[in-house]
């Protein structure tokens, strides 16, 4: 008969295979995995239903933070804030295509820092398509670069992506601390990548300067100002949380409630706009990983890795970075990070490594590795969809050939940066 660690590992492997194949929605696959985990756990007497509740409730702050942030960003998007910022930035695009591309890519990083990747890409992509028509130039390449840049912005702040939230919460990295470490690397990667993009683009002049009224994207100015006030308050409270210790989840939910009351937006319509699939996906994965942990599978895996890293402990940082990076190119980065968290904690304690640096290597890998392939991140998939709509198909290999150089350089620099964190 199969032992418990093997059974739970097989469930995990099955879920990963289904995620890679993409036959069903990722949340459905994760829910199936959670169901199998619970059934096997109860059947084998490894845990009971109270334990399942603990698997979820021990991550309640992360779940609340994600739901709160989603409501805040959805409301801000409806108020037109991000469209307003985008239109304001492109008014003065200058007369060169290189300058224009640089402005759009900086805007992408800013949007991705505050919004989830999907929404950031939808806004920047929609703006690019509209400008393409207006300026009568082909911006297909720029759309792909924007997708890549959303993942650079996605590691800037704690609220920029789900892996950031999950890892920061598990390793007690506060909002300010996250920004202090995350922003410099993102800026370095942004500048270098803009230089690379500029070198690839032909230096051609733009036909016209744009006469755009940014306010036309805002339906109600009072809602717009109220939404900004609430958002700024939430960010200030996030920063102050290191002192006041209210809990990031509670602050985000408080901000979301304030937004729903004061913004004047219809709550039903805001709720409909939320990405519930991600929330179910996340909760299900907390159960799957809880089962893996209880069955002893993760302990066995961590012990094997510890044995390997004992010879060369520094390899543990590179391992986290590369495993998260390469796996994110094919699978959603959330399950990878959730699974590696307990393993990383075990290895750090066992080998006396810098726990926070290990956490950072996971964050960098999870965010940047998705750019290797067109299916590695949701923004890449959206970019491909936008190109398809324009009648342009980009194959897996074409993406890899043209754009894989970016994550290669990004991961290399992130590795050096992690090394600096360990040394300092």
């Amino acid at each position: 008969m199969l032992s418990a660690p093997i059974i739970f590992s097989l469930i995990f492997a099955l879920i990963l295979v289904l995620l890679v194949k993409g036959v069903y929605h990722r949340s459905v696959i994760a829910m199936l995995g959670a169901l199998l985990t619970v059934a096997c756990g109860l059947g084998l007497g490894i845990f009971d239903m109270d334990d399942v509740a603990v698997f979820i409730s021990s991550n309640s702050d992360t779940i609340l933070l994600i739901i709160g942030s989603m409501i805040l960003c959805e409301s801000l998007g409806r108020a037109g804030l991000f469209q307003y910022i985008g239109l304001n930035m492109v008014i003065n695009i200058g007369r060169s295509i290189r300058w224009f591309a640089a402005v759009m890519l900086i805007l992408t990083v800013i949007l991705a820092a505050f919004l989830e990747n999907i929404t950031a890409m939808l806004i920047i992509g929609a703006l690019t398509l509209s400008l393409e028509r207006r300026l009568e130039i082909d911006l297909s390449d720029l759309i792909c670069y924007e997708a890549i840049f959303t993942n650079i912005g996605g590691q800037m702040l704690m609220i920029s992506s789900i892996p950031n939230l999950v890892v920061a919460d598990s390793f007690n990295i506060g909002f300010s601390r996250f920004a202090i470490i995350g922003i410099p690397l993102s800026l370095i990667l942004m500048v270098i990548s803009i230089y690379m993009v500029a070198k690839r683009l032909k230096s051609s002049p733009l036909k016209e300067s744009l006469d755009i009224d940014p306010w036309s994207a805002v339906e109600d100015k009072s809602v717009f100002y109220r939404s900004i006030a609430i958002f700024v308050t939430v960010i200030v409270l996030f920063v102050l949380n290191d002192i006041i210790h209210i809990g990031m989840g509670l602050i985000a939910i408080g901000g979301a409630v304030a937004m729903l009351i004061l913004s004047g937006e219809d709550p039903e319509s805001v709720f409909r706009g939320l990405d519930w699939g991600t929330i179910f996906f996340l909760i299900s994965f907390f159960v799957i990983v809880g089962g893996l942990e209880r069955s002893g599978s993760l302990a066995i895996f961590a012990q094997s890795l510890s044995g390997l890293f004992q010879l060369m402990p520094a390899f543990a940082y590179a391992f986290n970075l590369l495993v998260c990076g390469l796996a994110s190119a094919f699978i959603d980065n959330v399950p990878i990070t959730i699974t590696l968290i307990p393993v990383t904690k075990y290895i750090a304690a066992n080998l006396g490594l810098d726990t926070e640096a290990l956490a950072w290597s996971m964050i960098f890998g999870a965010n940047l590795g998705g750019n290797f392939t067109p299916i590695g991140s949701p923004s890449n998939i959206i970019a491909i969809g936008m190109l398809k709509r324009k009648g342009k198909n980009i194959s897996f290999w074409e993406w890899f050939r043209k754009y894989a150089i970016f994550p290669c350089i990004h991961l290399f620099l992130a590795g050096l940066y992690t090394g600096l964190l360990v040394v300092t």
Partner: protein
Amino acid sequence: MSKNGELPKKFEEIHSKIEKAVTPYITVKIVMPEGVDKEEFLKLENNDEFLQALNGFVKRWLKRSIKQSRKDEAQN
């Protein structure tokens, strides 16, 4: 979101708002006049020449109405 390149519904919502800001447009419903061929009428939606003519009409209309409102102001 599917991996086969379908864009989420949210995209249309965002795109139409931005499109309106970048290249302002209005959507007008023109009811089919009596006595015209239905098929020919429906084809007008994608007829560049017709759309160009409409564009010219809008310009002339706005020019005329601005002139008229100035005249009215002067009289009052």
